[in-house]
């Protein structure tokens, strides 16, 4: 099922993309496609970070909470860099995407936490950590 999501401020560094459709990917339950409604060539794969990093956490600033507009019904996703080998598929843990389900709006925020990277190898953690 496709969902329309509006990003009032766009994505970080890509501020001109505001409207997206969130759709499932074939044969996938962990990855979704965030496809720009304005540019069919622009889309991002996103995933729920908690299946490979259960203790992923960050704190929103007051202004971010104001922007997002609620503390309930929020979903957290991270963007995925798809690579030719599964071991090299990475997730960006520094720029999570927060979706407010009740308003259909989305925000990408910046996490200034040294423990997170923009290129976290999803599978290596899964294989090492078990």
């Amino acid at each position, binding site marked *: 099922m496709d969902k329309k999501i509006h990003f009032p401020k766009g994505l970080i560094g*890509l501020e001109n993309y505001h409207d997206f459709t969130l759709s499932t990917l074939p044969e996938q339950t962990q990855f979704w496609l965030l496809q720009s409604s304005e540019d069919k*060539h622009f889309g*991002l794969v996103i995933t729920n970070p908690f299946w490979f990093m259960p203790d992923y956490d960050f704190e929103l600033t007051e*202004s971010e909470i104001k922007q997002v507009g609620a503390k309930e019904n929020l979903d957290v996703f991270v963007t995925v860099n*798809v690579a030719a080998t599964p071991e090299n598929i990475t997730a960006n843990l520094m720029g999570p995407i927060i979706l407010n389900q009740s308003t259909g709006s989305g925000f*990408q925020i*910046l996490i200034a936490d040294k423990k997170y990277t923009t*290129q976290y190898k999803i599978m290596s953690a899964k294989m090492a950590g078990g």
Partner: protein
Amino acid sequence: MLILTRRKNETLRIGDDILITIVDIQGDQIRLGIAAPREVSILRQELYEAVRDSNARAALTVQNADMLSLLKKMPNKDEKK
């Protein structure tokens, strides 16, 4: 861009409520003290650039439909290891 000179312990005022003080200077490193309202976000520019570049790269990988099929090899939610 406004360029101005400040010495150690001198302060710069931006708007009504942002103060930037030169706390220390060691060689090519400068330690800044920043006082700003809580709603003002302060970030190192490299962080912004890293996330921006990652967004752009992630978008590139999706343009390649073959890449998406690679995700099929990834574990699904219901699969227990």
